[in-house]
Protein backbone atom coordinates (compact mmCIF):
# COMPACT_ATOMS: atom_id res chain seq x y z
CA UNK A 1 0.00 0.00 0.00
CA UNK A 2 1.20 3.51 -0.71
CA UNK A 3 0.63 6.84 0.98
CA UNK A 4 1.22 10.11 -0.82
CA UNK A 5 0.99 13.78 -0.03
CA UNK A 6 -1.31 16.04 -2.03
CA UNK A 7 1.36 17.13 -4.53
CA UNK A 8 2.69 13.59 -4.92
CA UNK A 9 6.23 14.62 -4.04
CA UNK A 10 6.38 12.36 -1.00
CA UNK A 11 5.54 8.70 -1.39
CA UNK A 12 5.65 6.19 1.44
CA UNK A 13 5.34 2.43 0.92
CA UNK A 14 3.74 0.41 3.68
CA UNK A 15 4.48 -3.29 3.31
CA UNK A 16 2.55 -4.65 6.28
CA UNK A 17 -0.67 -4.25 8.24
CA UNK A 18 -1.45 -1.06 10.03
CA UNK A 19 -1.84 -1.08 13.78
CA UNK A 20 -5.17 -0.06 15.35
CA UNK A 21 -6.79 2.98 13.74
CA UNK A 22 -7.57 5.66 16.29
CA UNK A 23 -9.38 8.97 16.03
CA UNK A 24 -7.53 11.65 17.98
CA UNK A 25 -9.40 14.79 19.03
CA UNK A 26 -6.56 16.49 20.92
CA UNK A 27 -6.09 20.15 20.11
CA UNK A 28 -2.62 19.53 18.67
CA UNK A 29 -4.04 17.08 16.13
CA UNK A 30 -6.85 19.50 15.29
CA UNK A 31 -4.35 22.27 14.61
CA UNK A 32 -1.83 20.08 12.82
CA UNK A 33 -4.48 18.69 10.46
CA UNK A 34 -6.76 21.71 10.29
CA UNK A 35 -9.58 19.23 10.81
CA UNK A 36 -12.09 18.07 13.41
CA UNK A 37 -9.86 15.17 14.45
CA UNK A 38 -6.98 13.07 13.15
CA UNK A 39 -7.23 9.47 11.95
CA UNK A 40 -3.98 7.74 12.86
CA UNK A 41 -2.47 4.27 12.86
CA UNK A 42 0.90 2.95 13.93
CA UNK A 43 3.13 1.29 11.34
CA UNK A 44 6.21 -0.69 12.27
CA UNK A 45 9.44 0.70 10.86
CA UNK A 46 10.21 -2.62 9.19
CA UNK A 47 7.11 -2.14 7.00
CA UNK A 48 7.88 1.52 6.25
CA UNK A 49 9.83 2.79 3.24
CA UNK A 50 10.25 6.42 2.27
CA UNK A 51 10.14 5.64 -1.45
CA UNK A 52 10.24 9.19 -2.77
CA UNK A 53 10.65 12.77 -1.59
CA UNK A 54 12.55 12.29 1.67
CA UNK A 55 14.22 15.63 0.97
CA UNK A 56 10.80 17.37 0.94
CA UNK A 57 9.77 16.15 4.39
CA UNK A 58 9.88 18.70 7.20
CA UNK A 59 9.35 17.95 10.84
CA UNK A 60 7.94 20.05 13.65
CA UNK A 61 8.63 19.04 17.24
CA UNK A 62 5.19 19.58 18.77
CA UNK A 63 6.19 18.28 22.20
CA UNK A 64 9.54 17.15 23.46
CA UNK A 65 10.60 14.14 21.44
CA UNK A 66 7.43 14.09 19.30
CA UNK A 67 7.98 15.04 15.67
CA UNK A 68 5.15 15.74 13.24
CA UNK A 69 6.20 15.35 9.61
CA UNK A 70 4.65 17.18 6.67
CA UNK A 71 5.44 17.82 3.01
CA UNK A 72 7.32 21.09 2.61
CA UNK A 73 5.88 21.58 -0.89
CA UNK A 74 2.14 21.09 -0.28
CA UNK A 75 1.84 20.95 3.51
CA UNK A 76 0.15 17.53 3.80
CA UNK A 77 0.54 16.12 7.31
CA UNK A 78 2.23 12.73 6.80
CA UNK A 79 3.05 11.02 10.07
CA UNK A 80 4.40 11.56 13.54
CA UNK A 81 7.24 9.77 15.23
CA UNK A 82 8.64 9.68 18.73
CA UNK A 83 12.32 9.70 19.57
CA UNK A 84 11.56 7.20 22.34
CA UNK A 85 9.96 4.66 19.93
CA UNK A 86 12.06 4.72 16.74
CA UNK A 87 10.50 1.48 15.47
CA UNK A 88 7.06 3.08 14.97
CA UNK A 89 5.64 5.67 12.54
CA UNK A 90 2.12 6.96 13.18
CA UNK A 91 0.67 7.54 9.72
CA UNK A 92 -2.11 10.04 8.96
CA UNK A 93 -4.81 8.01 7.24
CA UNK A 94 -5.85 10.81 4.90
CA UNK A 95 -2.71 10.31 2.83
CA UNK A 96 -3.38 6.60 2.17
CA UNK A 97 -4.01 5.75 -1.49
CA UNK A 98 -6.04 2.59 -0.82
CA UNK A 99 -8.37 1.08 1.74
CA UNK A 100 -6.25 0.07 4.75
CA UNK A 101 -8.92 -2.54 5.57
CA UNK A 102 -8.79 -1.37 9.13
CA UNK A 103 -11.60 0.50 10.82
CA UNK A 104 -11.31 2.87 13.73
CA UNK A 105 -11.40 1.40 17.22
CA UNK A 106 -12.32 4.44 19.24
CA UNK A 107 -12.15 8.19 19.79
CA UNK A 108 -9.44 9.59 22.06
CA UNK A 109 -8.96 12.91 23.87
CA UNK A 110 -12.70 13.58 23.51
CA UNK A 111 -12.46 16.02 26.41
CA UNK A 112 -10.49 18.29 24.06
CA UNK A 113 -12.86 17.77 21.14
CA UNK A 114 -13.72 20.71 18.89
CA UNK A 115 -16.90 22.31 20.24
CA UNK A 116 -18.26 22.69 16.74
CA UNK A 117 -18.07 18.94 16.12
CA UNK A 118 -20.42 16.23 17.40
CA UNK A 119 -19.37 12.60 17.40
CA UNK A 120 -22.27 10.74 15.79
CA UNK A 121 -20.91 7.21 15.50
CA UNK A 122 -21.17 4.53 18.19
CA UNK A 123 -17.44 3.93 18.74
CA UNK A 124 -16.12 4.03 22.31
CA UNK A 125 -14.95 7.42 23.52
CA UNK A 126 -12.03 8.02 25.87
CA UNK A 127 -11.18 11.20 27.70
CA UNK A 128 -7.43 10.75 27.41
CA UNK A 129 -4.96 9.48 24.81
CA UNK A 130 -3.70 6.20 23.43
CA UNK A 131 -0.87 5.97 25.98
CA UNK A 132 -3.27 6.37 28.89
CA UNK A 133 -5.71 3.85 27.42
CA UNK A 134 -3.17 1.32 26.09
CA UNK A 135 -4.82 -1.56 27.96
CA UNK A 136 -8.27 -0.77 26.51
CA UNK A 137 -6.77 -0.63 23.01
CA UNK A 138 -5.17 -4.02 23.58
CA UNK A 139 -8.49 -5.45 24.84
CA UNK A 140 -10.50 -4.02 21.92
CA UNK A 141 -7.94 -5.29 19.40
CA UNK A 142 -7.98 -8.75 20.93
CA UNK A 143 -11.78 -8.80 20.94
CA UNK A 144 -11.92 -7.67 17.29
CA UNK A 145 -9.45 -10.38 16.25
CA UNK A 146 -11.41 -13.04 18.13
CA UNK A 147 -14.62 -11.90 16.44
CA UNK A 148 -12.96 -12.06 13.02
CA UNK A 149 -11.62 -15.56 13.48
CA UNK A 150 -14.83 -17.01 14.94
Amino acid at each position, binding site marked *: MTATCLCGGVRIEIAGKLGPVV*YCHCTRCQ*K*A*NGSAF*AANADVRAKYWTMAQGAELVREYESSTGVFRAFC*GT*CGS*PLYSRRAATPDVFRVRLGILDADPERRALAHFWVGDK*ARWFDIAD*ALPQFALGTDEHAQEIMDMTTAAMAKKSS
Partner: protein
Amino acid sequence: MTTGRCLCGAVRYELTGTPIGMYHCHCSQCRHANGASFATNVIASAEDLKIVAGKDVLAAYESSPSKQRFFCSRCGSPIYSHAQATAAIVSVRAGTLDDDPGFRPNAHIHAASRAPWTEICDGLPQNAEGF
Protein backbone atom coordinates in the same frame (compact mmCIF):
# COMPACT_ATOMS: atom_id res chain seq x y z
CA MET B 1 -14.83 37.81 16.02
CA THR B 2 -13.18 34.40 15.89
CA THR B 3 -9.44 33.78 16.00
CA GLY B 4 -7.36 30.89 14.77
CA ARG B 5 -3.78 29.78 14.51
CA CYS B 6 -1.51 27.03 13.34
CA LEU B 7 -0.02 24.39 15.65
CA CYS B 8 3.24 26.27 16.29
CA GLY B 9 1.44 29.60 16.70
CA ALA B 10 3.47 31.45 14.06
CA VAL B 11 0.44 32.02 11.82
CA ARG B 12 -2.52 33.74 13.43
CA TYR B 13 -5.72 35.02 11.88
CA GLU B 14 -8.92 36.81 12.71
CA LEU B 15 -12.24 35.95 11.17
CA THR B 16 -14.98 38.54 11.34
CA GLY B 17 -18.51 38.69 10.05
CA THR B 18 -20.93 35.84 9.58
CA PRO B 19 -19.60 32.92 7.56
CA ILE B 20 -21.34 31.89 4.37
CA GLY B 21 -21.25 28.23 5.34
CA MET B 22 -19.40 25.45 7.05
CA TYR B 23 -19.18 21.94 5.69
CA HIS B 24 -17.29 18.67 5.82
CA CYS B 25 -15.47 17.93 2.55
CA HIS B 26 -14.63 14.28 1.80
CA CYS B 27 -12.84 14.80 -1.53
CA SER B 28 -9.54 13.05 -2.05
CA GLN B 29 -7.66 16.34 -2.32
CA CYS B 30 -8.92 17.55 1.06
CA ARG B 31 -8.14 14.21 2.67
CA HIS B 32 -4.58 14.26 1.36
CA ALA B 33 -4.09 17.96 2.12
CA ASN B 34 -5.24 17.46 5.72
CA GLY B 35 -4.04 13.90 6.27
CA ALA B 36 -7.46 13.38 7.81
CA SER B 37 -10.73 11.50 7.29
CA PHE B 38 -12.23 14.70 5.88
CA ALA B 39 -11.72 18.44 6.03
CA THR B 40 -14.12 20.82 7.71
CA ASN B 41 -14.12 24.22 6.06
CA VAL B 42 -15.57 27.56 7.02
CA ILE B 43 -16.55 29.54 3.94
CA ALA B 44 -16.15 33.26 4.54
CA SER B 45 -15.81 36.48 2.61
CA ALA B 46 -12.18 36.96 1.66
CA GLU B 47 -12.26 40.39 3.26
CA ASP B 48 -13.35 38.87 6.60
CA LEU B 49 -10.16 36.82 6.96
CA LYS B 50 -7.20 38.80 8.20
CA ILE B 51 -3.80 37.16 8.70
CA VAL B 52 -2.49 39.04 11.74
CA ALA B 53 0.81 37.18 12.22
CA GLY B 54 3.10 34.93 10.25
CA LYS B 55 2.47 36.05 6.67
CA ASP B 56 6.16 35.41 6.07
CA VAL B 57 5.88 31.72 7.05
CA LEU B 58 2.61 31.11 5.20
CA ALA B 59 3.37 28.90 2.18
CA ALA B 60 1.06 28.21 -0.75
CA TYR B 61 0.54 25.16 -2.91
CA GLU B 62 -1.44 25.41 -6.15
CA SER B 63 -3.55 22.25 -5.92
CA SER B 64 -5.68 23.06 -8.98
CA PRO B 65 -5.11 25.78 -11.58
CA SER B 66 -5.41 29.14 -9.79
CA LYS B 67 -6.45 27.50 -6.51
CA GLN B 68 -3.98 27.82 -3.68
CA ARG B 69 -3.90 25.99 -0.38
CA PHE B 70 -2.05 27.91 2.31
CA PHE B 71 -0.20 26.20 5.15
CA CYS B 72 2.33 27.08 7.82
CA SER B 73 5.78 26.26 6.46
CA ARG B 74 7.08 25.82 10.02
CA CYS B 75 4.60 23.27 11.43
CA GLY B 76 2.58 22.24 8.36
CA SER B 77 -0.89 23.21 9.61
CA PRO B 78 -3.32 23.72 6.72
CA ILE B 79 -4.86 27.19 7.20
CA TYR B 80 -7.09 28.14 4.26
CA SER B 81 -7.55 27.94 0.52
CA HIS B 82 -8.41 30.56 -2.07
CA ALA B 83 -9.31 30.17 -5.75
CA GLN B 84 -9.31 32.86 -8.42
CA ALA B 85 -12.60 31.51 -9.79
CA THR B 86 -14.24 32.30 -6.46
CA ALA B 87 -12.00 35.20 -5.47
CA ALA B 88 -14.54 36.75 -3.10
CA ILE B 89 -14.44 33.82 -0.66
CA VAL B 90 -11.91 31.86 1.33
CA SER B 91 -12.18 28.39 2.80
CA VAL B 92 -10.73 28.27 6.30
CA ARG B 93 -9.70 24.95 7.88
CA ALA B 94 -11.89 24.69 10.97
CA GLY B 95 -9.39 22.68 13.00
CA THR B 96 -7.26 25.81 13.29
CA LEU B 97 -10.04 27.79 15.05
CA ASP B 98 -9.11 28.70 18.62
CA ASP B 99 -12.55 28.68 20.20
CA ASP B 100 -16.14 27.85 19.54
CA PRO B 101 -16.98 29.96 16.49
CA GLY B 102 -20.68 29.81 17.30
CA PHE B 103 -21.59 28.20 14.01
CA ARG B 104 -21.75 24.55 12.99
CA PRO B 105 -21.17 22.38 9.93
CA ASN B 106 -24.35 22.10 7.87
CA ALA B 107 -23.50 19.56 5.15
CA HIS B 108 -21.17 16.91 3.82
CA ILE B 109 -19.86 17.43 0.30
CA HIS B 110 -18.12 14.99 -2.02
CA ALA B 111 -19.71 12.30 0.16
CA ALA B 112 -19.34 9.78 -2.69
CA SER B 113 -15.55 10.20 -2.42
CA ARG B 114 -15.41 9.58 1.31
CA ALA B 115 -12.62 7.49 2.76
CA PRO B 116 -13.44 3.76 2.96
CA TRP B 117 -13.01 3.86 6.73
CA THR B 118 -15.41 6.80 7.15
CA GLU B 119 -19.08 6.28 7.88
CA ILE B 120 -21.29 9.33 7.93
CA CYS B 121 -23.56 8.83 10.94
CA ASP B 122 -24.93 12.31 11.56
CA GLY B 123 -28.12 13.63 10.02
CA LEU B 124 -26.58 16.42 7.95
CA PRO B 125 -27.44 16.64 4.24
CA GLN B 126 -24.99 14.84 1.97
CA ASN B 127 -24.01 15.94 -1.52
CA ALA B 128 -22.43 13.18 -3.58
CA GLU B 129 -20.26 15.80 -5.27
CA GLY B 130 -19.47 19.45 -4.62
CA PHE B 131 -21.93 22.31 -4.50
